[in-house]
């Protein structure tokens, strides 16, 4: 008998979006079970049903053969099911142990929290699972990886037996990922059951006992992790052959397009973040990667280049124009920009696709017959062309981005920005949160722009992506460029060491 059995699960999101269709999912006690699939395949919805965040339109859930109704996350916790979300739910100013016991505080007389007992219990837990965590540290001082541990500890403290991890490695460096895997394995040894949601096929193959593959709301297959390869999995996920490796044509780089001279940025609001004497250049026809752990100055560099914030010192040139003090509007004639937060900066979710695709294009005269007007006929022609050219799946140019999948939303941004024909491309996490099929597509488009002779600065937390696409890689740490590396020579692990500061 299976530990957890989800039978004939259907979920229709109002008004008529089918997220899950006749899904049967079973989980054995003590296994590490990976759930993979493209975005919108339904893996998160399925897990949210198990965790009580979403209610199924039809279908049953059984635990040890008994039918249960999981109406809320607290029900789920009572049934021994916990979830580690992508966005952490911690109070930054609290100490680690305070965050862990929050909501489950044991008290002495007069409602005073029994701190000693809590700390003792947590110390015992961290020792048992091999967590390296200071229980008295303030949460906001912790690294992302450490905060993730706090989240896990929260669940262990609540004595859950099943831990659902929603893309836990998306925010981690290779070294941190290794550590997480060690911890997951030790949890398994302690008898816990793990569900692991991921996009990264290497990781899935490394850690899972069983793999369930989902595609467009159904389960394609649920198999033992034996004799499987990445391309097997990718094919089942996407439904067709996927080329995972990137093939770059050799290109002799042209003249320098982007150049920064001693760029220094000092944010008065926060003492941690700054840039110091950044000297980088990007030539026409080359992709330059910027590697670094999140929060080491990438955000500030991007904002300074695009014009969201001003630099204290130094100069920025694009195509021989100095733009150090230019308005965003002037810069946008020279820069195509893919922002990392696509919903906040890249789209107006409730406007039409035509309106979304016309942004920035409208600054020039391409879309107008008279200077101060927009000719919507021209804008519609442009939108229709881009929709076809970039295979954007939508109900037409009057559809809204909020109805599109993440991959298609990203394609809308790519279509708009790459058709601007600017000499310099600033790509901030262009494939974050996308599925394998879309990532392949985005990589190909980026490479095409490289062949067209654009200068491309690529920022990505995915080191595999960064190293396979880039011609050169800068490593940024504490707001300084630490080193420039050649991805054909240096390995992922070496880059990781520079990022962590192990090598100078």
């Amino acid at each position, binding site marked *: 008998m299976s530990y957890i059995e989800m039978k*004939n699960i*259907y979920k*229709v*999101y*109002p*008004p*008529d979006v*089918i997220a899950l*269709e*006749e899904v049967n999912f079973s989980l054995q006690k003590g296994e590490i079970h990976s759930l993979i699939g493209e975005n919108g395949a339904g893996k998160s919805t399925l897990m949210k049903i198990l965790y009580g965040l979403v209610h199924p*339109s*039809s279908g049953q859930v059984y635990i040890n053969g008994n039918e249960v109704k999981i109406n809320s996350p607290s029900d789920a916790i009572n049934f021994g099911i916990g979830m580690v979300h992508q966005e952490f739910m911690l109070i930054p100013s609290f100490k680690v142990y305070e965050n862990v016991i929050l909501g489950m505080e044991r008290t002495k007389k007069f409602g005073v929290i029994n701190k000693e007992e809590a700390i003792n219990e947590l110390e015992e837990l961290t020792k048992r699972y091999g967590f390296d965590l200071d229980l008295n540290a303030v949460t906001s001082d912790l690294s992302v990886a450490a905060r993730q541990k706090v989240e896990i500890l929260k669940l262990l403290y609540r004595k859950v037996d099943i831990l659902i991890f929603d893309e836990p490695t998306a925010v981690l460096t290779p070294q941190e990922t290794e550590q997480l895997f060690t911890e997951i394995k030790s949890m398994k040894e302690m008898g816990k059951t793990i569900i692991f949601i991921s996009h990264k096929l290497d990781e899935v193959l490394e850690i899972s006992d069983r793999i369930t593959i989902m595609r467009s709301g159904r389960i394609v297959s649920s198999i033992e992790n034996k004799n499987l390869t990445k391309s097997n999995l990718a094919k089942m996920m996407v439904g067709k052959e996927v080329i995972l490796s990137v093939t770059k044509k050799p290109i002799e780089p042209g003249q320098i397009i982007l150049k920064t001279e001693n760029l220094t940025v000092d944010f008065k609001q926060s003492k941690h973040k700054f840039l110091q004497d950044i000297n980088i250049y990007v030539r026409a026809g080359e992709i330059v990667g910027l590697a670094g752990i999140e929060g080491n100055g990438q955000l500030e560099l991007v904002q300074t280049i*695009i014009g*969201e914030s001003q630099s204290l010192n130094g100069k920025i040139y694009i195509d021989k124009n100095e733009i150090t003090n230019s*308005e*965003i*509007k002037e*810069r*946008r004639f020279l820069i195509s*920009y893919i*922002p990392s937060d696509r919903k*906040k*900066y*890249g*789209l*107006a*979710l*409730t*406007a039409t696709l035509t*309106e979304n695709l*016309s*942004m*920035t294009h*409208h*600054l020039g005269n391409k879309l*107008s017959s008279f200077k*101060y*007007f*927009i000719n*919507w006929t021209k804008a519609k022609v442009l939108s229709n062309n881009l929709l076809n050219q970039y295979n954007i799946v939508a109900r037409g140019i009057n559809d809204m981005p909020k109805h599109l999948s993440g991959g298609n939303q990203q394609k809308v941004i790519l279509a708009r920005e790459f058709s601007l024909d600017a000499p310099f491309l600033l790509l901030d996490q262009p494939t974050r949160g996308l599925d394998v099929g879309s990532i392949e597509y985005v990589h190909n488009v980026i490479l095409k722009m490289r062949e067209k002779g654009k200068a491309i600065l690529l920022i990505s937390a995915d080191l595999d992506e960064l190293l396979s696409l880039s011609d050169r890689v800068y490593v940024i740490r504490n707001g300084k460029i630490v080193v420039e590396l050649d991805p054909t020579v240096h390995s992922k692990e070496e880059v990781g060491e520079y990022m962590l500061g192990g090598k100078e």
Partner: protein
Amino acid sequence: MKSLNKILTGIIGIIFSLLVGALLIKIQGNSPINAYKALYDYGLGSWFSITSTLNNSTPLILTGIAAAIAFSSNVNNLGQPGQLIIGALSAALLGYYLPFPGWFGIITILILSGIIGGLYASIAGILKKLYKMDEMLTTLMLNFIADYLTLYLATYPFLDKKSYVPATKMIKKEYFLPSFKYLNSSFFIAIFVVLISYFVVKYFKKGYEWRMMGHNPDFSRIGGCDNEQNLMWVMFYTGFLSGLAGALLILGGTQHRFIKGIGANYGWDGVMLSIVGANGILETSFFSLFFGFLKSGGVGMEFEASIPSEFIMVLQATIVLLVVSTRSVFSYYGDKIKAYSKTQKVVKAHE
């Protein structure tokens, strides 16, 4: 299609409100049938009623679209009452002192009063730009300043000595806007301005930028639009519309002078109308006509059924609440029902 939807849900909400209103009338011991018959007779029953409805709706149309354009651009201009009253006072003074002849004078007065209303609204824009002051607060506060400033000016420096209440002197006869069979030409000016505004918002690059700023200000800024400048323009334009509404009250109304209380509730009604019209220019204008109907019909209810005219304000408030809730209820339960039937269909297909 979308704007038809907004209008249909609006009408359903209005029907519900009239039912609630009927109940209230009944509770007070009056006959709802008589009351609503009087509402109809005085609001739509004859040519004279129709023209009075249209005349009443004229300032509402302008303050309504002023609010709609501001809100749909993510600019919280709540200063329509103040901007309207400033525009009205300007028109009254210009109408008395301006030496220009007939039509030329009228056009000058309308445009100048609009500009003064726009500049008054721009104060909030400047405060936002320089000191990051929230425009919702500043426009609200500027309403009080406008109220007392105009009252002062009409009570002391520009007081008409023959008047018993604070009022300015009557404007020149040649600046009176003519009526055609009781319908004042200011109504046509308002409709003309609606069409222009629709065109500006839809086809001007600036209008596109305003709308995108309304959808997502971060998106428009990163896309290369100057949000600060656009905020100033929206403030000025919507202030212009409210100022123009005030000027039309003086030139086209019945008093032809600035009197204490002339602004009535037109500014706030505009804010309500933009909510009922879901910030659409055409939808808001449509519902302005309906509010105009309530105003002229309300007089009838007072005369014929002795229901106090304040009842119309209760009805207006009920309409706003019920239209907004009807809209949410329709989309929420409509989607739920669709999802349910879809589930049934899919499950059946698998059995």
